[in-house]
Every structure is written in structure tokens, then in C-alpha cells.
């Protein structure tokens, strides 16, 4: 068949759990590759638990996002799975008017500034991002 994912695409070369050292591990591999993946996962589960959306709605939106990524011709080798979760979550929060994208951008800038304003080794708090650098 003429799909882009023909026989030339191999499962070999996809990052295997053993290569991702030093990360949270269940008995047979790391659950999340990066801490932010765990955060996104937990936020989605928690918002679902609070009733913001049904799980069927979530899987439908996630499927749509994954199909879009495939249409764009991206490799999508599983290591970007939680990026798809993040994008799906963002779009859903905008759709449902929970927040606006401009707010997210502003808060991301504040967080970045908070890091820059915090001495190395000290905990970083969002409020530190409101002071401009000296």
C-alpha cells in the first residue's frame, strides 16, 4: 500500500527504555522520560477526574492531534507522545475557555524570568519572575 509508513519503517531505532538511564522506572522501563511528561499526564487525569471532560472526549481529541502529526509527515516514534498530550490539553483548555493562549505565553515568560532571577540551587518560585533582572 502507498502509505508513508511502509516496510522501510522499522521499530528498530526507536528509543528503548534501557537507553534512558536515570529516570523513573517501573519494573520494565521508565514510565516518563522527563518530569514535565509526568506533570502533563497528571494534569490531564486530574482535570478528567474533576469532570472537565469525559475520557471518550479526551481520546477523540488526542486521536485527532496524533492524526494531524501523521499528516504532517512527522516520524512520531513514541518519544513525542506526551507532546501530543500537551498540545491536546492546551487546545482543549482554550476551546473550553478555561484559559487563553496569551495567558499561557505570559506565564511562561514569568517562569523563565523566575529562573533567571533565582540563584543557582535555590527553589524557583513563579513570584520571582515578576522582578526584572538587576
Amino acid at each position, binding site marked *: *500500500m502507498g502509505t508513508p509508513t511502509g516496510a522501510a*519503517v522499522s521499530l528498530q531505532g526507536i528509543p528503548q527504555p534501557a537507553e534512558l538511564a536515570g529516570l523513573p522506572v517501573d519494573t*520494565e522501563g521508565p*514510565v516518563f522520560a522527563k518530569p514535565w511528561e509526568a506533570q502533563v499526564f497528571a494534569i490531564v*487525569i*486530574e482535570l478528567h477526574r474533576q469532570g472537565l471532560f469525559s475520557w471518550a472526549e479526551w481520546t477523540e481529541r488526542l486521536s485527532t492531534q*496524533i492524526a494531524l502529526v501523521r499528516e504532517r509527515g512527522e516520524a512520531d*516514534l513514541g518519544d513525542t507522545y506526551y507532546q501530543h498530550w500537551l498540545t491536546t490539553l492546551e487546545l482543549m483548555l482554550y476551546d473550553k475557555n478555561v*484559559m487563553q493562549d496569551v495567558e499561557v505565553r505570559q506565564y511562561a515568560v514569568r517562569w523563565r524570568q523566575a529562573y533567571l532571577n533565582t540563584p543557582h540551587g535555590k527553589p524557583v518560585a513563579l513570584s520571582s519572575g515578576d522582578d526584572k533582572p538587576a
Partner: protein
Amino acid sequence: MKDQEHPHEHDHTEPPGDLELKVKALESLLVEKGLVVPAALDVLIETYEHKVGPRNGAQVVAKAWAQPEFKEWLLEDGTAAIASLGYTGRQGEHIQVVENTPMVHNLVVCTLCSCYPWPVLGLPPVWYKSAPYRSRAVSDPRGVLDEFGTILDDHVQIRVWDSTSEMRYLVLPQQPSETQGWPEETLAGLVTRNAMIGVEKIPPPKAQGAP
């Protein structure tokens, strides 16, 4: 004039990448809006990192191998039989257990979005969430099994189960014949995550590993 024209590199913390900053922004906004409590997120992460995993599924499989009546129940009503062991929760609302036999080999995939039976297997491995697996498990299951080192005889029929938000699947692998009569705890130690997805079989135990 300043004493230090060049600030020492430890005077700030290197910010993380854009993705992580965005996640932090989302979380802060959700907390401020009262939709999320950070402690609840920590509990969820702890649970899925350390408490829910394929050992749960291995217990289910071992019990089915050791107790024919439990196996019968498991194949008839997987959700209830699994819940009786305490493995319930999200993405485990409806679980169908499919049995491997000498004639039939089952393989599980989610072609759309990587649905997976969390209560018994934890969260899915990287390859399960990849586009090549999603497409090739359906178009070329024998080739996929081959890459996992699983060679099936030509006469073995392969059944591919496509998970949905409504129904998840767990493969009941074939018990190695050498292990008949072994205690459940020992049997559970033989069962791998990949065998319960259906990409591998349970190899016969090494002779010295027998109890």
C-alpha cells in the same frame, strides 16, 4: 562602577526548555483558577510511576495459569475477574482478556491514540506509542513480531486487537509446559509486559530456575 562586571554563573538558574516552561505555565494557571491542586498531581505521578505496573498483570496471568476456574472467569468477564484482585481504575473500566493457544496468537495495539490497560500494565512503553507500531501491528503483524524476536509457525493465526477508549485488551500468554504446578508467585515472575501486549511469548524457564 560595579565590582562584578560579569555576574558569576551561579547567580541565576538556567531556565528549562520551552516545553517545560509551557507546562509550568499551564499548571500555575490551573492552580490559580482552583482547578488543580499540586499535591493531587504528585499523588497521581507517584501512583503511576511506582504502584501501577505490569507486575499487576503478571499476577492476573499467573492466577489464571494456576487456577482453571479463575481463568474461565477471566476469559468470560475480564473486567470483573481483574477487579477481584483489586486492579481497577482509569483505562481499566472494560478489559477483555484474549488467550494465546497453539493455534492463535493475539497482539494488542491502539491505532488511534495508544489506549492501554493501565491498571494491569501501567503506562505504555515508548514503542507502543510510535506511529510505526500503530500502523504496522495491523498491516504487518508477523513482521512486527519478528522484530521482537517472536517467530510463529505458519499455521498460527494472528489476531490483532485494536484498543479504544471503551475497550482495552490483555493477552493471556501460553504457560510454558515445564511450569505446570508451579506456585503463583513463581509463575508471576515469568510473565513479561511484552508477552501481555502480545509481542513476545513466555520462554521456557532455564532448568536451574525451577523451584
